[in-house]
């Protein structure tokens, strides 16, 4: 099964479960959790079911295309269901079966792994799902986001598509994976990994990144004051990406790091609180 078949399978499976099929968000994010389809929708009281592929960037994980497991951009398959259904574990196992995995022949384990994201004030309780020792999914019951207790509680499933595909194809090198029957991961991604690693580690312009961080931070605050919460949140995502780039450039001092994370968290918390207040009054 190729990656694109894997994606199509998951899309089919989760739409059959009643999920709305979102498209990848068009900004750089570190994880599917950070997109508005998750961040805002978990805050309010309304039921929500969504599934989507989200390209996720982690500049420091770049290895110039030379490491068989690590890449500075990977693809997550993100599912959010709120409230968490009582049978979600079985449904998840069924999704693996739908990919042709005979679960009775394997060792599938739900291994304690709680999740936390300080910059968006979020945490949850759950597991890393291990298939014969390989981590293929992060399974989390969200408890808080933007510093706010979530009720009802959403469940988040994040499949690591490359990991899962390596399992399905039985391959040890990410670049050997088939994206389609005649296009490989190497064809699509190698050059991107190589060039972006160079950019992330050596070329990204530190001064303009710092400036961009400040500009976007200021704009986020202005937008929050005008109750334009979705654009304000976009600005926070940009700040977060600039921060990650500065980090991979090794350009952040001790005190700056703490301060910058706190700054993003403060903005995000304000957005979350205003969003919830607005939802409650409408």
């Amino acid at each position, binding site marked *: 099964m190729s990656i694109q078949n894997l994606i199509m399978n998951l899309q089919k499976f989760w739409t059959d479960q009643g999920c709305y099929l979102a498209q990848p968000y068009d900004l750089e994010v570190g994880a599917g959790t950070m997109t508005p389809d998750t961040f805002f929708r978990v805050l309010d009281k309304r039921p929500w079911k969504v599934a989507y592929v989200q390209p996720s960037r982690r500049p420091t994980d770049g290895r110039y295309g030379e490491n068989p497991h690590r890449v500075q951009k990977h693809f997550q398959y993100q599912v959010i269901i709120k409230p968490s259904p009582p049978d979600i574990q079985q449904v998840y196992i069924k999704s693996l079966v739908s990919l042709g995995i005979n679960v009775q022949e394997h060792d*599938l384990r739900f291994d304690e792994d709680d999740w936390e994201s300080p910059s968006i004030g979020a945490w*949850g*309780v759950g597991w890393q799902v291990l298939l014969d020792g390989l981590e293929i999914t992060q399974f989390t019951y969200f408890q808080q986001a933007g510093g706010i207790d979530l*009720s009802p509680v959403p469940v988040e499933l994040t499949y690591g598509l490359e990991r899962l595909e390596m399992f399905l194809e039985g391959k040890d090198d990410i670049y050997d994976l088939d994206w389609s029957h005649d296009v490989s991961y190497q064809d699509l991604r190698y050059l991107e990994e190589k060039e972006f690693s160079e950019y992330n580690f050596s070329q990204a312009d530190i001064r303009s990144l710092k400036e961009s961080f400040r500009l976007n931070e200021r704009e986020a605050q202005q937008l929050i004051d005008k109750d334009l919460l979705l654009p304000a949140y976009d600005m926070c995502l940009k700040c977060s990406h600039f921060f990650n780039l500065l980090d991979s450039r090794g350009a952040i001092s*001790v005190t700056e790091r703490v301060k910058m994370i706190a700054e993003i968290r403060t903005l995000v918390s304000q957005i979350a609180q205003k969003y919830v207040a607005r939802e409650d009054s409408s």
Partner: protein
Amino acid sequence: MEFLLEVFTEEMPPSHVKTALSQLGEKFKEELLSRNVDAKKIEIYGTCRRLIIFGDLAPEQKDRKEEIIGPPKAVAFQDDGTPAPAAKGFAKSQGVEVNKLEVIKTDKGEYLGIKKIEKGRPTQNILSEILPSLISSLSFPKMMRWGSSSFRFSRPIKNLLCVVNEKPLSFSVGGVTAGNFTYGHKLQCPKKIKVKTFHEYKVTLRKMRVVVNQEERRRMILSQIERKLASLNARCYPDEELLERLSYDVEYPYIFLGSFPEDYLNLPIEVLSTALREGQRLFSVVKEKKQLPFFLGVADGYRDVKSLIQKGNERVLKARLEDAKFFWTQDQKSGLRNKSKNLGKIVFQEKLGSYEDKTQRMKKIVAYLADKVDAQKIKKQVVQGAELSKVDLLTDMVREFPSLQGKVGGLYAREEGHPAPVWKAVYEHYQPVSMEDESPSSLTGSVLSIADKLDSIVGAVGVGVHVTGSKDPFGLRRNAQGVCKIILDKKFNFSFSRLLGKVMDVYGAKIREPETQVKNYCLEFFANRLRYIYEKQGYRYDLINAVLSAGIDNIYYSFLRVKALDSLKDSPNFEPLILIFKRVNNILRDQPPFRINSGLFVEKDERELYTTFCIIKDNVLPLIKKGDFSQAQRIIFRIKSSINNFFDNVLVMANETRIRRNRLALLQAIYKLLVQVADYSQIVIEGQNLSK
């Protein structure tokens, strides 16, 4: 009457299962006891998905007998034998006929009264009352909510099975209603089954690939390991923590043996075994203390027909080991000293600066401490160790395997050719990580470990972090216990409060709280850790209090003092001395300090006491100095008769101020000497409960 409860959940962490099982056992027994339900047998079992109570209980509560006492028999009847108004009134107030009153014998004589027998209610009624609160009262290290409910538990509860006398008992907890069914193994046999008895439950679940008894699963793991290793003539590297974890992690253990390419054996054993244990939770295989290129894994199932589980794990492990090998060579491309330039980029603690700052402080602290513990000859090496100690935080190896911090730095230092006292200092400086862990074997490691931990504690307290109840975000308790353990194990003999002062000096302006406040907080904090340690060692709490409230300036000596008190607590001299001390203590309360003027002693007995005291003091002080507290204590006993005579024949509170003050001064001097061993007023004497 048979009782079975199963709380069926999504996978709970092993630590949660363990605490839940012990809470369930205790609380259930307590509840039954308080409700007068006899239990012949209570057994507690659990897996990561099930918490189970099996019991053989009495079918009913015991009947409750109650006696209501009325008037004394003597006044209850008139002369003619008819009931007096007192008896009539009582009968009326109880709603019974007066002729139903019985004679009840009490300690105070015979009374009229009534005996009531409250019939015990059926146990199942009691159970349906206590079980919901029992289950929802369980507490876990971290709790969660799920769905639309506000109920909190370790992980979502999916089903409740409760059977009493083969019949379902219905109640609800967290939105789930109990019934008489459960489910088999999550993957191998997820079917629903009906349950009537515990025997049937065990047997059927076993067929459905669930072994409910944790001890049995543990035995299965061990015996399978033995079988798998028989042909290799090797053994599994013992790892009790991992074994226990895995015996809860799986419902039906299946052991698989896998291998990895031999070239990875070039990695240090610390790295190899950590790579195996963390992530995939695999056991290492050793033969004659050498690691073999094999591993053992525990799968949750009963077979691996196509060896898919084994092969999958081998692939994942190979990638992990490949990473480790890459880190091992990559990290060594630039030396530790070169790497240390970047220590300034990693935060130690927000308000306390970077690891560069911490390293500089530790260098000064170890230099000071080396002098104090007679370790001048290793001073240079321990300073070098301090310099390198935190550099491994910048290595890829520690980033990948955080639990190897310290060890990795030590291994790299060894590879770079640093002498053993230096690399061992680095290697061992996080030890001991718990009271069960070993203290550093090297002197350099011991000194460095104390400096590191004390730096963290004083720094955190200095910026206002306080440890309360379950809140200890920086692990200060563990650090402080580590410091105490090393000092006691190594018999380090130095002034602890001066060391605290030194650490504060080194911090300088970074400490924001007032200096005395920080110092006092630290001293009290350490006294509490010592109390915990001594109590764990089985010393009597009042002896511990007596020692600790006399101060812990010398931590090692505090231990010797506890030991001395403990060894002399049964001596006939012990109790009189304590009474004397308490008396002295009472007289001196609220008195300002005075000075002895030997020319002002007028009575014979006070002069004699002064002389005895001077002799005792001259003998005792050197003993105290060298830590021989038992002998010091034995000599102190000799003050008894002089001081008794003094109290019998001399009026302390004399009218003349000078005389009075001089007598108080003498008692103060005695007090000051005695309190160097212990604050005896804290010791409890049988029949007296003066202090705690």
